[in-house]
C-alpha cells in the first residue's frame, strides 16, 4: 500500500458547520439550537441551525438596512451582481451536484441538470434587471400639460418560505425574482433539505451581493413563518413552501400591514419561470411632471 493511499484511507474529513446567513455574516442561531438533517437514505447529514423568532427579526432588520443601497443601485449593477452569482455557482457545480444528490436523492445526472438549471436561472433573472422598467413602465397620455410616467419600484423587504422539495433550484427560483428588482429578502430554506441553501449563502457571501440583501434562515416553517407573516416591517411574503392550511393563517396574519402575498404553490421548477413572481414584488409609481416654459 502506498503512503498516499494509506493517508487517504485514514484521513478524517473536515466537516462544515451549517449556520444562518444574516446581514452578510454567518451566525449560529441566537437560541443555541440546532436540528438534525438527514440525507435521503435517512443517515445523519449535519446539524443545521434551528432559527428562532429573534433570528428572524434580526434577519428582517438586516434586510431593511440593505434595502436603501440595493434598491438605489443601478439596474445594470444589480444585473451584474446576479450574473456574478451564476459565475461562482458554475465554479462549484460539482459540490452543489453532490449536495443536491445527497439531500434530494436524485441520480448524478439529474442532480447535475438541477444545478445547471439553477445557474441558468440566475443568468435569466440577471438579464431582467434593466428590462423590467421598460416592460412594466409606461408614459401615460394625460389630458393636461404634464409628462406622466409610471415606473415599477421594489416593494421593500420580502419574506420567502422556500419550496420544500426543491432545495436549490426551487430556492433560487423564489429568491432571484425578488432581489433582481431591488427588494431584499429573508428566506426560510427547505425544512428537510436546508443544506444546499446554506452552501449557496456561502456563494452569495463571496460574490458581490451586498450583505443583508439575501438572508437565509434554516429551521421549522411552522415556528418561523408566522413571525415573518406578522412582522410589520416586511412588505411582501411568498408562501410557496408553506402547507395549505398554514398558508391561510399566514395570509390572515399578513393582512395586518397589507403585505403583498404570493400563494402560488410548488411547481416544476425546471420550467421557464414567467414574470409573475417578479411582478408580485413591484409597486407602480406614477409621476406627474409639469411641462411649461
Amino acid at each position: 500500500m502506498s503512503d498516499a493511499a494509506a493517508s487517504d484511507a485514514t484521513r478524517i474529513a473536515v466537516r462544515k458547520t451549517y449556520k444562518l446567513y444574516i446581514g452578510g455574516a454567518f451566525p449560529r442561531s441566537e437560541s443555541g439550537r440546532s436540528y438534525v438533517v438527514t440525507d435521503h437514505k435517512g443517515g445523519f447529514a449535519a446539524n443545521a441551525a434551528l432559527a428562532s423568532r429573534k433570528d428572524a427579526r434580526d434577519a428582517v432588520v438586516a434586510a431593511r438596512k440593505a434595502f436603501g443601497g440595493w434598491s438605489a443601485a443601478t439596474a445594470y449593477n444589480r444585473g451584474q451582481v446576479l450574473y456574478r452569482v451564476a459565475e461562482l455557482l458554475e465554479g462549484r457545480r460539482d459540490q452543489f451536484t453532490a449536495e443536491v444528490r445527497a439531500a434530494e436523492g436524485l441520480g448524478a445526472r439529474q442532480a447535475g441538470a438541477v444545478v445547471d438549471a439553477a445557474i441558468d436561472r440566475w443568468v435569466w433573472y440577471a438579464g431582467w434587471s434593466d428590462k423590467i422598467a421598460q416592460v412594466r413602465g409606461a408614459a401615460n397620455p394625460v389630458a393636461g400639460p404634464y409628462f406622466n410616467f409610471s415606473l415599477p419600484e421594489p416593494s421593500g423587504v420580502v419574506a420567502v418560505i422556500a419550496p420544500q422539495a426543491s432545495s436549490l433550484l426551487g430556492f433560487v427560483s423564489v429568491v432571484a425574482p425578488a432581489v433582481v428588482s431591488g427588494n431584499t429578502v429573508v428566506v426560510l430554506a427547505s425544512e428537510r433539505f436546508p443544506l444546499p441553501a446554506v452552501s449557496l449563502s456561502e456563494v452569495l457571501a463571496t460574490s458581490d451581493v451586498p450583505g443583508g440583501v439575501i438572508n437565509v434562515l434554516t429551521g421549522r416553517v411552522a415556528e418561523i413563518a408566522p413571525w415573518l407573516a406578522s412582522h410589520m416591517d416586511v412588505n411582501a411574503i411568498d408562501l410557496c413552501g408553506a402547507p395549505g392550511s398554514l398558508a391561510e393563517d399566514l395570509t390572515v396574519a399578513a393582512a395586518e400591514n397589507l403585505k403583498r402575498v404570493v400563494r402560488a404553490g410548488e411547481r416544476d421548477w425546471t420550467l421557464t419561470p414567467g414574470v409573475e413572481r417578479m411582478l408580485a414584488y413591484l409597486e407602480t409609481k406614477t409621476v406627474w411632471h409639469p411641462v411649461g416654459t
Partner: protein
Amino acid sequence: MAKFEYAPAPESRDIVSLRESYGLFIGGEFTSGVDGRPFKTISPATEEVLAEVTEAGPADVDRAVSAARKAYEHTWSAMPGAERAKYLFRIARVVQEKARELAVLESLDNGKPIRESRDVDIPLAAAHFFYHAGWADKLEYAGYGPAPRPLGVAGQVIPWNFPLLMLAWKIAPALACGNTVVLKPAETTPLTALAFAEICQQADLPPGVVNIVTGAGETGRALVEHPGIDKVAFTGSTEVGKEIARACARGPRKKLTLELGGKAANIVFEDAPVDQAVEGIVNGIFFNQGHVCCAGSRLLVQESVYDEVLAALRRRLGTLRLGDPLDKNTDVGAINSAAQLAKIRELSDAGEAEGAQRWSPPCDLPVKGFWFPPTVFTGVSQAHRIAREEIFGPVLSVLTFRTPAEAVEKANNTPYGLSAGVWTEKGSLILWMASRLRAGVVWANTFNKFDPASPFGGYKESGYGREGGRHGLEAYLDV
C-alpha cells in the same frame, strides 16, 4: 377700495327628478329587496331627506351575484370585445349628456360643491368610460399575454367621497375586460349609482352585466364574502381593507385590489413659486372638504420660506367660501355625514390636546347640516395623531424641514404610501424626490390631478393594485 360681495348663484335642482324610493338594480331591473329594509339618504348640507333606498340583505346580494354570473356566462364573456366597447362608449356618452343632472344629484347627496362635481367628478367619470371602452377590443396588446381572460364576477365596494367617479373607476375597467359586476355604493351616497343604473338601461346594456346593491357595511360584507364572486375591489378605509384581506384569505380564491387611506406629504421647497404652491396646498387638502384618500394632509415647508408660505396660505384661506354646495361660488361644501364630522372633530381636538396650534379663518357655519371650517395646525410634530392618522377632512398639519433628505425622511415616515406632492422650480429635484418618495402617485407643482390613463394606487398600507391606465387592467384579468 370697496369689496364686492358675491351674489348667490345657485344651480337649480329642478333638473333632478328623484323618486320617493328606490329598489335594487338586479338583472337589468329595479326590484324590491327580498330580505332588505329601507333606509333614507339625506343631503348633508341641510339634513333634508332626499329619497328612500333599500338596504340589500344576503339574499338580495345572492340574487345580484347570480344575475351577474348568468350575464357573464351567457352574454358578456362571449361578446366580442368590439361590441363590449360600443356599450362602454354609449355609457360614456350618456354620462356626458346627463352631466348637469348627475352633477346636481352628486352635490345634493354628497355635499360637495357643484363646481367640483360639475368640473371634476362627472367629466372624469365619463372620461373613464371613454378610455376603457377603447381597451375592450385591444386587451391582447396590453402586455398580459396574447389572449388575456376576464376573471368572472367582480364584487365592488366604493366610498362616499367621489360616488360616481369611484363607480366609473370600478365598473369601466371591469366591463372592458369582460367581467360582470355587483357594485355597492356607500350608504350615504347611493343616488348617482342608482342614476347610473338608469343610464345602463338607456344604453341597453344586457341585463345582469351591472348590478347595483345599496346598503351599508353588512351588505358590503355579504358581497365580498360571497363564494360566487371571483374578484373583490374595494376603495375605502385601511381598517376595512385589512378586514377584507383577512376575509379573502380563506375559502375560494378571489383576486383582490384595495385602494385605501393615505397621509400624503405635500412638500414645498424654498424656490417654489409661493402663490402657485399655496393654490396647490389649498387644492391638496380643501378640495372635496379633504374627503380625499390622497389628500395632501401633511404640509412640509422648507424652513427658510415657512413664514412667507404660512402668511400667504392664511390670506388665501380667508377668501374661501363655505356654504351651499349648489352655489357655483362655493369652495368648501358640507361634511358628508354626522359620523365623519364627529371623527374630524375628535382628531382636531386631539391635535389641540397634544399641543399643536389650531387656526381657522373667520367663517360662519350654516346651522343645519354637517360643517367643519378649513383648519390649519402649526407646531405639529411627527408623533402627533394629526400627523399620523388619516383625518379625511379639511384639516392640514404643517411641519417643516431643512434639507431634501429630511423632507424625504419625514414624508416616508408613515404606514401609508398613496401620494405625495413636490413644489420646486428645479426639474432635477422633482425627479430626485419622486424616486425617493414611497408613494404610488407623485404630483410635481400640482396636486389631486386624476386621469383615466394615469395609474392610481398605493404602497404599503394604502393598499395594492392600480386603477387606471394599462396597469389598471391587470386587476380585472386572469393574469
